[in-house]
């Protein structure tokens, strides 16, 4: 295991027998084991990697959302490149963050996380910078894909998929098609009680932020106060805050309009073509899910080779066809998106249009404020 700081001396353990000494332990542990932050560590030099390393001697643990990449990808990668891949799963960014920041080698080499989380990991010095020379397929990415604000130039992360957030609705069950965030926040009588909003902090706040003309990354207390009162007024009109089953609710008709990520809305459209997606006129966000390499990885060459393999146009086409998400990969989109966009119009959104959305970045010291406001809104 690699440690940046020497481990606490074993003697500490010998003395420690009682509860009291755990305090001392924790203090030592914090600097080595605990989730200590040191912004300075992000400037640590990157490892020098051997482009000619024997990859078949390396093996990888890749952590991803379940069903987010082709099931046969690990086997195909092993056949083509050499390293054996084990895939582990997380349900949310938040969970995997807790594990990656616990202060030790999590055993994970490559992780899939959303943009702002990659930014926070990089800021804590936990990520290996991407060595572009080991990832020739980076050239498949749209030029716009290196302008993502959480990591401009893709220094620590490589975008895997991207998209935006909007309103997903049943065109047959709403009287007028929504065009504005206000249609969600102050719903018409016929949709009242049949709308849902996303439950995760950033997206729970987004509709009100955009409607009021604020940045999706604002930490201004006065602005956030107005956001809070808008959201509090909306709460009684909602069916629920829901991050996971909102498209199923649309299909069953329990809900008629939901705040949704574009890709997830497509799952609803796949089951009922009367479901439509719209980006409200006030604008929205630009999110990206990324691949990152952990500094603790002992298989960094293989990790780069893996990312390179994933960026292959065929693999990324699979993502578009099966997950119905947009990918920032030009040849992949050129191959399949035009055909699919007939059924799933939001797959036709171009990179230029996407970049009009505001990129979400880590809130830094503002995060606890968001969390408090969300508590105040949902507990109201």
């Amino acid at each position, binding site marked *: 295991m690699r440690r940046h700081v020497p481990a606490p001396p074993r003697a500490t353990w010998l003395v420690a027998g009682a509860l009291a000494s755990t305090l001392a332990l924790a203090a030592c542990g914090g600097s080595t*084991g605990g989730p200590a932050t040191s912004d300075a560590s992000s400037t640590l030099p990157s490892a020098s990697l051997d482009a000619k390393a024997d990859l078949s001697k390396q093996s990888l643990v890749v952590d991803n959302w379940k069903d987010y990449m082709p099931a046969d990808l690990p086997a195909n990668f092993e056949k083509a490149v050499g390293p054996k891949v084990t895939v582990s*799963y997380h*349900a949310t960014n938040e969970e995997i963050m*807790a*594990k990656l920041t616990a202060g030790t080698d*999590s*055993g994970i080499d490559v992780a899939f996380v959303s943009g702002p989380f990659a930014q926070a990991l990089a800021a804590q010095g936990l990520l290996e910078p991407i060595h572009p020379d080991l990832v020739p397929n980076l050239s498949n990415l749209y030029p716009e894909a290196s302008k993502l604000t959480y990591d401009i130039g893709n220094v620590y992360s490589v975008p895997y998929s991207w998209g935006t957030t909007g309103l997903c609705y049943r065109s047959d069950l709403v009287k007028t098609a929504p065009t504005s965030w206000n249609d969600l926040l102050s719903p018409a009588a016929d949709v009242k009680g049949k709308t849902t909003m996303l439950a995760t902090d950033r997206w729970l706040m987004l509709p009100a932020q955009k409607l009021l003309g604020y940045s999706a990354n604002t930490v201004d207390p006065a602005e956030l106060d107005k956001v809070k009162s808008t959201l509090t007024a909306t709460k009684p009109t909602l069916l629920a805050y829901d991050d996971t*089953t909102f498209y*199923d609710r649309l*299909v069953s008709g329990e809900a008629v309009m939901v705040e949704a990520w574009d890709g997830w809305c497509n799952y609803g459209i796949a089951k009922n073509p009367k479901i439509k997606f719209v980006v409200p006129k006030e604008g929205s966000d630009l999110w990206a899910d990324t691949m990152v390499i952990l500094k603790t990885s002992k298989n960094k060459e293989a990790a780069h080779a893996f990312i390179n393999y994933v960026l292959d146009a065929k693999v990324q086409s699979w993502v578009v066809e099966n997950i119905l998400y947009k990918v920032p990969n030009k040849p992949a989109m050129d191959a399949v998106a035009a055909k699919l966009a007939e059924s799933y119009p939001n797959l036709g959104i171009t990179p230029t249009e996407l970049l009009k959305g505001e990129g979400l970045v880590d809130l830094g010291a503002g995060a606890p404020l968001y969390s408090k406001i969300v508590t105040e809104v949902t507990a109201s």
Partner: protein
Amino acid sequence: MRSLRWLRVPFVITYAFLYLPIVVLVVLSFNASSSPFSWGGFSTRWYSVLAGDADVLRGLGNTLVVAVGATALSVVLGTLLAVGLQRHSRSGLLDAFALAPAIMPDIVLGIGLLAFFSLVSVTLGLHSVLLAHVVFGIAFVAAVVKARMSQVDSSLEEASRDLGAGAVSTFLRITVPSIMPAIIAGGLLVFTLSLDEFVIAFFTDGPTTPTLPIVIYSMVRFGVTPEINALASLLMLVSFTAVLAAQRITRLTDSV
């Protein structure tokens, strides 16, 4: 027992309450639609999907290993602790300490254990989940057994000792049988809690050894399909059969 006939009412309500969702769950396992909220016609496809899903089956195996191991260890440690607390402790604080894991918010215990395992450089895997589940397991067994111990008449144990039986044999032959219903109840609790425990398992398991709840929760992003209902239905079927078979066997041995 005529006077207690009215007890049938809450008894029936309770079992109906417990099994109503199970009926829905089994019905949904035959739902052609992948959504739990709409009926798409009858189908057995989820049973074949399940048969081919290595991740879910591996998760099930991991979960059973953890649950059985954690139950066994918790029953032994928890029972000893309960008997010890009842006989040798006058301190409410010691009781509170022993039962504390049951009151710890599981996320705190989970993250605490993750930090602890990091500190002592324990690689995470099934063993670490098992060790973590024993923490709350001890508390549940100890609490149930201790509640029972406070009602146990100690004269039998004293008689046994007066007759010259050793402490160990008195414990095994007199004490343990007298608290057996509580040990079974406590063990059942731990097994049940461990089978479906998610939060602590998430923080203490290794990346390559997910338990079943972790595999299932990770499906949330793209929808938990009725495949899991199929798995649950099969598990219920197997458990029911096992329970009834065991009941038959005990009845046979009873009648001999």
